[in-house]
């Protein structure tokens, strides 16, 4: 019984939130990795692009709510995602055509493209703030919980409750669907294979007749899907605030590098590595140990490795460690 209580406690406060947060990071990290692999630059506008897509979802949700269209128990935002994705892809293709293309054709150094993406970041951030403002917005509607702590306690008779928010379930389900389709696409279809070939060796890919324009366009389209869905899921789970999205870019980068940049599957796992590390290192295990240990050994302190203030710092430290010992990432990415 004690053991079960301890496990449920851990599940409720660390594992479930970590899986949710990890999925959100993973989508962003795949976005970063794809852009890095195919277009060959670190995209510093990642966070703001995700924010841009989410902004459309938020605005459309408000519109749908005012008109009275909804999904019942599911959040209306799910209905708006397709429209937001289209807007996002259009914006990305627009930016690519007018900004990135010039440098790609000129074969500029990756650093130059990264600097250009900083410019895009500024512009995107400005557009978002001018359109929707810098404020915190909640756009979640429908049923909030799938499983409430009190219901769980009644069901099982345990002391500890397990809460599963509907956003957590939606995040996991949507991530699994999206990521499986993506990996199927990358590994099984001809277009996906040509993308991977282009990413591995550009010259060789061009020689074998792969159209670079098409590859670039498809990359942006996939990126649009990932950015918007990742952004909306995060916004549903927490709340939508432009500044937070900019900050989220940092753990996303960490996840992409930890997983081996240029390697989508690595990025996917990297997201979870970062999320689990952040939450496990900053969780206070006091209650967990009180369940497990005999009374005489119960800890007085919080048994917390680092305070929650250092949440971000943990993921960045992991990045530093990975860079020190395995610069190409845990799952072999591109050579650096």
């Amino acid at each position, binding site marked *: 019984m004690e053991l079960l209580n301890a496990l449920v406690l851990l599940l409720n406060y660390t594992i479930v939130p970590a899986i949710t947060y990890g999925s959100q990071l993973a989508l962003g990290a795949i976005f970063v990795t794809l852009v890095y692999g195919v277009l060959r630059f670190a995209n510093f506008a990642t966070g703001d692009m995700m924010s841009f897509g989410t902004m459309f979802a938020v605005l459309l949700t408000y519109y749908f709510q005012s008109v009275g269209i909804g999904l019942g128990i599911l959040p209306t935002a799910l209905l708006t995602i397709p429209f937001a994705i289209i807007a996002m892809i259009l914006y990305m293709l627009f930016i690519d055509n007018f900004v990135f293309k010039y440098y790609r054709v000129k074969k500029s150094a990756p650093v130059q493209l990264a600097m250009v993406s900083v410019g895009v970041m500024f512009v995107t951030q400005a557009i978002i703030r001018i359109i929707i403002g810098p404020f915190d917005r909640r756009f979640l509607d429908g049923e909030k919980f799938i499983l409430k702590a009190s219901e769980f306690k009644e069901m099982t008779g345990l002391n500890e409750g397990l809460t599963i928010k509907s956003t957590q379930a939606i995040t996991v389900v949507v991530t699994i669907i999206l990521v499986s389709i993506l990996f199927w696409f990358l590994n099984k279809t001809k277009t996906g294979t040509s993308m991977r070939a282009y990413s591995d060796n550009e010259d060789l890919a061009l020689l074998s007749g792969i159209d670079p324009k098409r590859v670039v366009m498809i990359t942006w389209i996939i990126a649009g899907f990932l950015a918007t869905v990742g952004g909306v899921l995060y916004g549903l789970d927490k709340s939508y605030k432009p500044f937070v999205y900019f900050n989220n870019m940092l753990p996303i980068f960490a996840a992409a590098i930890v997983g081996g940049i240029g390697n989508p599957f690595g990025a996917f796992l990297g997201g979870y590595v970062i999320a689990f590390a952040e939450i496990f290192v900053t969780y206070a295990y006091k209650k967990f140990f009180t369940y497990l240990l005999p009374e005489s050994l119960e800890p007085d302190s919080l048994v917390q490795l680092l305070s929650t203030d250092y949440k971000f710092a943990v993921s960045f430290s992991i990045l530093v460690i990975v860079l*020190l010992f395995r610069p190409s990432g845990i799952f072999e990415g591109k050579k650096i």
Partner: protein
Amino acid sequence: MRKYLNIITAYSIMMILIILVGIFQSWSIALSILNYCLISAVMTMGANIQWGYAGLINFGIMGYTALGGLAVVLVSVAPVPEAWSAGGFNMIMSLILILGIVLVVKYILKKYKSLKYRNYLIALVIVFGIILIRIVASPGIEAIESVNPAKTGFLGGLGMPILFSWIVGGLFAAGLAFLIGKIALGLRADYLAIATLLIAEIVVSIIKHEDWLARGVKNVIGLKRPVPYEINLQTSPWFINLVEKLNQGKLNLISSVSEKKDILNQLVIDASSVYVKLCMTGLFLTVVIILLILTQKALYSPWGRKMRAIRDNEEAAGAMGKNVVKEHLLIFILGSAIVGLAGAMMVTNDGLFTPGSYRPMRYTFVIWVMVIVGGTGNNFGAILGGFAVWFLWVEAGPIALFLINFFTAHLDEANALKVHLIESAPYFRFLMIGVGLLVIMRYRPKGLIPEKINTKKI
């Protein structure tokens, strides 16, 4: 002379713009902008040394700036003896522990070169060390933070003159740069950018949350100043006399004695704030000029040529026997030290240390825009970039407001679009900076004042 014409023109335009602000807004605002321009110029010079001379991309500017600011607090604030007696011992013990861990790790690295489990051993030492430090430090931290938490709650500084802290700020930043350089300098350029960005974030989060060090997000206010205080100026007779003399003509026009006194009072108050800012400007200008002379000398010395050679072709320079790794580390440290100095200058100028305000947007990316816009590899360009971008950053709001009003003049006052646009005027600064950066990168990739290299025929 012809050679410097574009530099002189650009700087004159900049000065005229600042003078215009003085005439149309107020001299106090103009001088604050000028001061910040000078500080930005120092930061830009630091980043330019790394990027322009050596091609190293450092997105960790924020970390060095914050560390420079921390140095001001640690050096100039008076020590808090109660806090030292409450928890000083624990903190010193933890410091010794940290040193111990570093030494042990170094020893392991040196002694067991071929051991299979070396990395695990190091990880074990570090994790165990962290737990030990927490056990030792946490009672100390609690004791220190409970000493008069509203006012102090931290260890305080050394109570030394604030100008000394500028040097310490540079040294702090140099130390951090040494560490980061050792970790990350071998990485490819864009990896280095990401790594430095994230490490800077770690540094700032430590400064933010370790309240015993510098009060964290509770801020340290009322720092010392290297220049006189307004309130002292307003009561000192020589200053009042000076203001009276300068405004003789204006004052003579007024006949009533009491009215004259009121106006003089107001003038003295205004003049005192301008005077204080002028003193700051003098200090900052001295720093900028000294740095400019040093960096120019360095750029055209054999060392500068070596750096450019390494930047332009690393392999060739390496083949010629230049130690690329060592030179990269050196220039990384030098540039960061200058940024740390700028961070200390900024906190001195503000008179307060607010760790919560260090954000990558303002302290890393805007500085980078300055470097790119000004002209990479050219010190005059870097300074100009600092001036121009900071000026735009501050004045973008008013300019945007003016433009919005101009273009929506035909719309009704209560028009939703107009109201919305006017409300979001402050965000147009991001748009202007971003578009400015994109345009410069596309059409003038070498910046406003491009790098000039004397290529004498041999």
